[in-house]
């Protein structure tokens, strides 16, 4: 789970439901319906990244990073501890795809995740500056707080883009 004290320049891989705070490179691999959300403080060149799986926690508190409604508040709390207030943060998000068009279950979890992240960011007064969401495509996302909060996205076909 999050360990804000870790100071490593190696890329931290953030698994499903995990989050990290710091200025080291961070990465979420193979996002499908999950969301990779980054919050960046341009003045401090630091930030946070979380790998969200589902929109609503339904009151569960043991893995706050797993759900959109609990992940964003916990990131803001961690960032506040190191002196980044909500108004100084910029958000970017990627993922929220629908990898399987048909499954009868009629759950577009990717879209619900994306919607929920937007709503919670708005509630918290965080500006969403860029996003690459939806479609039927997997994304691996890298976040470089030390390099201006750059977020780069690689797709399965090797195409890369930047947010």
């Amino acid at each position, binding site marked *: 789970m999050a360990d804000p004290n870790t100071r490593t320049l190696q890329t931290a891989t953030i698994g499903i439901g995990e989050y990290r705070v710091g200025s080291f490179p961070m990465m979420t691999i193979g996002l*499908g319906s999950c969301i990779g959300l980054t919050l960046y403080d341009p003045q401090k060149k630091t930030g946070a990244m979380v790998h969200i799986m589902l929109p609503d926690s339904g009151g569960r508190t043991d893995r706050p990073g797993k759900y959109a409604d609990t992940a964003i508040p916990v990131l803001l709390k961690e960032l506040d501890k190191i002196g980044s207030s909500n108004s100084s943060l910029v958000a970017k998000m990627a993922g929220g*795809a629908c990898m*399987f068009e*048909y499954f009868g279950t009629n759950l577009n979890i990717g879209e619900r995740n994306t919607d929920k992240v937007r709503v919670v960011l708005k509630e918290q007064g965080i500006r969403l500056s860029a996003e690459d969401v939806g479609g039927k495509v*997997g994304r691996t996302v890298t976040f470089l707080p030390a390099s201006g909060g750059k977020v780069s996205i690689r797709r399965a076909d090797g195409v890369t883009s930047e947010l």
Partner: protein
Amino acid sequence: MKLSAVQADAIQELGNIGAAHAATTLSQMLSSTVSMSVPAIRTIDIAELGNHIGDESAAMVVFELQGEIQHGGYIIFYITRESAIRLTNTMLGMTDMDRELNEMDQSALLEVGNIMVSAFLDATAEMLGFIMLPSPPVLSIDMAHAAMESLIAQLGEEVDEVLLFSTELICEEHKIDSDIIMLPEISTLKRITELLEAMMKAP
């Protein structure tokens, strides 16, 4: 759900039988020898999923487990992109490796997955006396992790750990490496272990 050593052994045996039948069908389709690994049962924390399934490009033919349990989880025919091209090349008498997976490849993969998974589930149904039917297949040709995490997110019973139960099927002649992976709901897993335990107790 934690499996006891006995339960794990029993599930492994079930996988063995299912995969052996699937391997036979693959062998017939390729007219070549197909060998299989010992089935691996892995309980994986979702945060660690990326250590087991990466963002490499793969074809996954996915079936929902239906039948006596309505939404029983998923069973997946997994094959890396290169192996998928070699597989359809072998079946369709082509040699070009440097190409995209086209519509013909996609229908071939769906069909191969369908035949193999049906053989797998037929064999396990016969052994267990418990029928799991495959839904119509859906295909993803993309990052393996992206497809798998999406399936885990839409499991009916929300989990922090998943049980992945996989058997590797290899055709050395054509360098084709594939897996059959089962991602059962907890209720399905419970039902299967109960039936296996009852079988072992029977005289």
